[in-house]
C-alpha cells in the first residue's frame, strides 16, 4: 500500500479562480492511500517545493500527486524536489488542473468536480508507479561519416578539430563527391576544385581522420554511443599502402574504351584509373569489369610498369569491423535519369544534355578541356536553351514532387558563364518560377539578365524535336507574351531534378533511421533538430536529408559535427527510464515487437528456462536495450500477451487512470 501525498496548487488565481482548491484537497484526502492532502499558493515556488519535501519526510510518503499546471511545465521541478527529499523522482504524478481544467472552464462547481476526478486519476496511477532508475551506457569516442562528399568532409574535419577520431567511408575510389565534378560555384563563381581540394587534402593529412575509400557499409549493429559497423573495403587490386599515385599504369593500360564516369561517359578512361588529378587518396583502382587480366588472365601490363609493385590481381574484398559512438550519414544526391521525358529528346540527340554534363563540358579538366562544344559534332553552339524543373515539382507518377532547390541558381550560373566566355551565343532559360532565396542569390540572377543578357522566358518547354540539319527545335509557350515560341537551338541543357543516392535506402534499414517517401532521411524534428535522425546517435549531413546547395550543406555539416562532438564529449549517456521492458516468462519470442520498433531497440536472446514440467528448455525471448528504446510504446500494443510493457506508462497504470475517470 502506497502512502500518497496530494498537493493542490492555487497558481495564484489561475487555478484557484475557477477551482475550489480547498474542496479538491479535502476530497482527494479521503481517497484510499492518501495520507496528506494540502493546498498552497504556488507549489512550484521554493516554499511550495519545501512543503512537498517536508511532507515526504514527515509522512514517509511513497508517492506524490501534484495538482497543478501541465506536466510539460513543472513535472521536472517536482521530480527534482522529490528526489531531494529522498523519494524516487518517478513516484511523482501531475494532475493537470490548469491548462486542462481551470483555464478552459468557467463554472466553479464543474471545474472543481473535474479537478477532483483528474486528481483521482493521478492517485490511481501513482498507486501503481514503481521507482525507476535511469540507466547509463558508455560512449565510444569515435565517429563514422558515411559519404565523403563536401558534407562528409566538412563534418569529419569539424569533428576531428574537436579532437575526436573520425572514419570516412566513401564508395568511390576518391573522396570529394559531386563537388569535384563542378566547374564554378554560385553565387561567387569560385572554382569548385580550388575550394574543395584543400579540404580533401586536409582530410588525408589529419591524423584523426581515417579514409576508407572504395568502401561500403555492410552491416550496423549496436546503439547510440556504441555502434559496431562492418565496412567492406572493395577489392581495387592495388595495394593502397604501396601505390604512389604516379599514374604510369593509367597511361600504359591497353584497355582504353572504358566510359569515364567522372565525365559522365562523355569520354573514356583506362581499365586502371585515378578518377582525376587531385583524387584523395591518390591511388589507382582497377575496374574489374573491364580489366583484361582479371577477365581473361592475359595482360598484366600495369603490374609490369608499376615500380612500386602495388598491383595485386588476387586482392579480395576485405571486411573491417569498427566501433563508433556516433554515425553521420552524408550519402548525398544524384541527378535523376531524364530518358523517360521523351518530349525533351534526351535519348534521341547527343546535343540534349543535363546540367551536370554541361558542368563537365565547361570544366578545364573535362572532356573538351573546358571548351564549350556540341557533343554531336564538336562545333561551338550559338543558341543554347536551358530548361528548368525537369522532373521536379511533378506528380509522383511524372517525377519528384519536391523542388530540387539548386537548379535555378546553377542554371543562372551556366547562362552567365556561357555569355561571358562566348558573347556570340544566345542563351534562353525557360522557367516556371525563378527561386533565389539566399544571400546574394537574387543579385546573381539579376546579373545574368541585366548584365549578361540572358533571355529568361516564363513558360515550360513542351517539346524538343531534333531536326535534319542537326538543330533542335524547341517549342514552348511564352506565358507573358502569350505566344508560342519555336527556337532552333544548337544545344539544350536540362536542369534535372536531384534525388537521394540509391545506397541511402538500404543504409537507412541498417541504421533503423527513417526516411520519407522520396528516400530522403527524416530529421528528428523539422525545425528544432534538423541534423539529427530520430534514431539516437545517427546524424544527417548534406543532401541526404533534402536538396541543398553547397553553403547550406557546409553549414549543416558543421551543425551535425557539433551534435556529434556534444555526444562524444560525454563519458556516459543517461537513458530515459520510461522505456519498454519485456517479461521473459510471458514473452513467446514471436518477434512482432521487433517488427514495429523504430529504433531497433529489441533483440532476441536464447535463454534457459525451467518449463512447467520442470524440464529445462532454451527459449527465445525479447530483450529491450534501454539505451536505445525511446519509450513510444508501439511494441506494447503489438504484444498480445502483454509481455512487453512500458515503465511509467504501464498497461495497469493507464487502465487505472481510465477507471478513475469513468468512475
Amino acid at each position: 500500500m502506497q502512502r500518497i501525498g496530494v498537493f493542490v496548487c492555487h497558481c495564484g488565481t489561475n487555478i484557484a479562480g475557477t477551482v475550489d482548491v480547498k474542496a479538491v484537497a479535502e476530497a482527494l484526502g479521503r481517497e484510499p492511500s492518501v495520507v496528506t492532502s494540502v493546498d498552497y499558493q504556488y507549489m512550484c515556488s521554493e516554499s511550495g517545493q519545501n512543503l512537498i519535501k517536508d511532507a515526504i519526510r514527515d509522512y514517509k510518503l511513497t508517492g506524490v500527486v501534484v495538482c497543478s499546471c501541465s506536466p510539460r511545465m513543472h513535472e521536472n521541478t517536482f521530480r527534482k524536489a522529490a528526489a531531494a527529499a529522498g523519494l524516487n523522482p518517478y513516484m511523482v504524478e501531475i494532475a493537470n488542473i490548469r491548462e486542462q481544467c481551470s483555464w478552459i472552464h468557467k463554472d466553479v462547481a464543474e471545474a472543481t468536480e473535474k479537478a477532483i476526478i483528474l486528481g483521482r486519476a493521478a492517485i490511481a496511477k501513482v498507486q501503481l508507479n514503481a521507482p525507476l532508475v535511469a540507466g547509463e551506457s558508455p560512449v565510444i569516442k569515435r565517429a563514422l561519416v558515411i559519404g565523403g562528399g563536401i558534407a562528409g568532409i566538412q563534418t569529419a574535419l569539424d569533428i576531428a578539430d574537436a579532437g575526436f577520431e573520425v572514419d570516412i567511408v566513401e564508395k568511390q575510389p576518391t573522396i570529394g563527391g559531386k563537388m569535384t565534378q563542378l566547374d564554378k560555384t554560385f553565387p561567387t563563381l569560385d572554382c569548385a576544385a580550388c575550394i574543395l581540394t584543400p579540404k580533401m587534402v586536409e582530410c588525408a593529412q589529419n591524423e584523426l581522420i581515417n579514409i576508407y575509400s572504395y568502401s561500403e557499409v555492410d552491416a550496423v549493429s549496436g546503439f547510440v554511443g556504441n555502434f559496431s559497423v562492418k565496412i567492406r573495403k572493395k577489392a581495387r587490386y592495388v595495394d593502397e599502402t604501396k601505390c604512389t599515385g604516379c599514374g604510369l599504369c593509367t597511361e600504359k593500360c591497353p584497355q582504353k574504351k572504358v566510359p569515364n564516369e567522372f565525365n559522365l561517359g562523355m569520354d573514356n578512361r583506362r581499365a586502371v584509373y585515378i578518377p582525376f588529378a587531385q583524387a584523395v587518396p591518390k591511388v589507382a583502382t582497377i575496374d574489374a569489369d573491364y580489366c583484361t587480366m582479371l577477365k581473361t588472365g592475359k595482360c598484366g601490363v600495369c603490374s609490369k610498369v608499376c615500380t612500386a609493385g602495388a598491383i595485386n590481381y588476387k586482392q579480395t574484398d576485405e571486411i573491417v569491423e569498427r566501433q563508433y559512438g556516433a554515425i553521420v550519414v552524408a550519402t548525398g544526391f544524384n541527378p535523376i535519369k531524364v530518358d523517360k521525358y521523351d518530349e525533351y529528346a534526351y535519348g534521341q540527340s547527343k546535343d540534349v544534355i543535363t546540367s551536370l554534363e554541361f558542368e563537365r563540358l565547361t570544366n578545364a579538366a573535362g572532356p573538351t578541356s573546358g571548351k564549350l562544344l556540341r557533343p554531336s559534332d564538336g562545333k561551338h553552339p550559338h543558341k543554347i536553351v536551358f530548361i528548368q524543373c525537369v522532373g521536379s515539382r511533378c506528380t509522383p507518377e511524372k517525377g519528384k514532387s519536391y523542388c530540387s532547390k539548386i537548379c535555378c541558381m546553377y542554371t543562372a550560373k551556366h547562362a552567365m558563364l556561357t555569355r561571358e566566355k562566348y558573347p556570340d551565343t544566345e542563351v534562353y532559360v525557360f522557367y516556371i518560377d525563378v527561386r533565389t532565396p539566399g544571400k546574394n542569390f537574387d543579385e546573381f540572377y539579376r546579373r545574368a539578365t541585366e548584365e549578361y543578357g540572358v533571355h529568361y522566358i516564363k513558360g515550360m518547354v513542351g517539346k524538343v524535336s531534333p531536326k535534319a540539319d542537326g538543330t533542335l527545335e524547341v517549342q514552348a509557350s511564352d506565358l507573358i507574351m502569350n505566344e508560342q515560341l519555336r527556337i532552333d537551338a544548337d544545344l539544350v541543357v536540362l536542369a534535372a531534378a536531384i534525388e537521394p543516392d540509391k545506397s541511402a535506402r538500404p543504409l537507412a534499414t541498417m541504421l533503423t533511421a527513417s526516411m520519407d517517401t522520396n528516400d530522403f532521411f527524416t530529421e528528428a524534428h523539422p525545425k528544432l533538430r534538423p541534423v539529427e535522425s530520430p534514431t539516437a546517435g545517427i546524424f544527417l549531413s548534406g543532401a541526404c536529408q533534402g536538396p541543398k546547395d553547397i553553403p547550406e550543406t557546409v553549414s549543416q555539416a558543421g551543425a551535425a559535427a557539433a551534435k556529434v562532438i556534444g555526444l562524444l564529449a560525454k563519458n556516459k549517456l543517461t537513458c530515459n527510464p520510461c522505456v519498454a521492458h519485456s517479461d521473459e516468462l510471458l514473452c513467446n519470442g514471436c518477434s512482432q515487437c521487433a517488427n514495429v520498433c523504430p529504433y531497433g531497440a529489441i533483440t532476441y536472446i536464447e535463454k534457459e528456462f525451467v518449463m512447467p514440467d520442470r524440464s529445462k528448455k532454451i527459449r527465445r525471448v525479447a530483450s529491450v536495450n534501454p539505451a536505445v528504446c525511446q519509450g513510444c510504446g508501439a511494441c506494447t500494443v503489438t504484444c498480445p500477451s502483454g509481455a512487453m510493457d512500458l515503465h511509467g506508462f504501464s498497461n495497469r497504470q493507464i487502465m487505472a487512470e481510465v477507471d478513475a475517470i469513468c468512475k
Partner: protein
Amino acid sequence: MQVNEQFTPTIVAFCCNWCSYAGADLSGTNRLQYPANVKIIRVPCSCRVNPMFILRAFQRGADGVIICGCHPGDCHYTTGNYYARRRTTLLFSMLDYLGIERNRTRVEWVSAAEGAKFAATMNDFVAQITELGPNRRLEDLRCRK
C-alpha cells in the same frame, strides 16, 4: 431519437505527449472552452493506446473515446501514429461490425500548435456523443453506479 436533457456524457481522450497533449495545453493557455466532461489521459504516443484501454473505458461507463496524436509524418517517434492509424481503423471497424455505434469512437490528429482545433474537436465530439445518448451496448452493468 429521444435525447435525455440531463445526459452529460463521459468522454476519455487519449493524447500523445508530444503533439496533442501540448495542443490541449495550448487550448488552455488560449482559454478556449470545451466541456468539462472530457478528461485527458497522457500517453507517450498514440501507438501506446491499446485496444484494451478503449474497451476498458467503455466498460467503465465512458460514452465516447477519442484518440489524438501527431499528424501522420510528424510523430515524435517517427512511425508511432502510422501503427496507431491501422490499429484504430481496424478496431473501430470491428466495433462497428458488432453493431456498436461507430460515432462513439474517433481519431484526430492534433498538433502542438492546434489549440483551437483541439477545443473545436472536443466540442464537436461532445455534441456528437450527447446526441448519441448513453453507451449501452458496450458497458459493464456491474460498473454502473
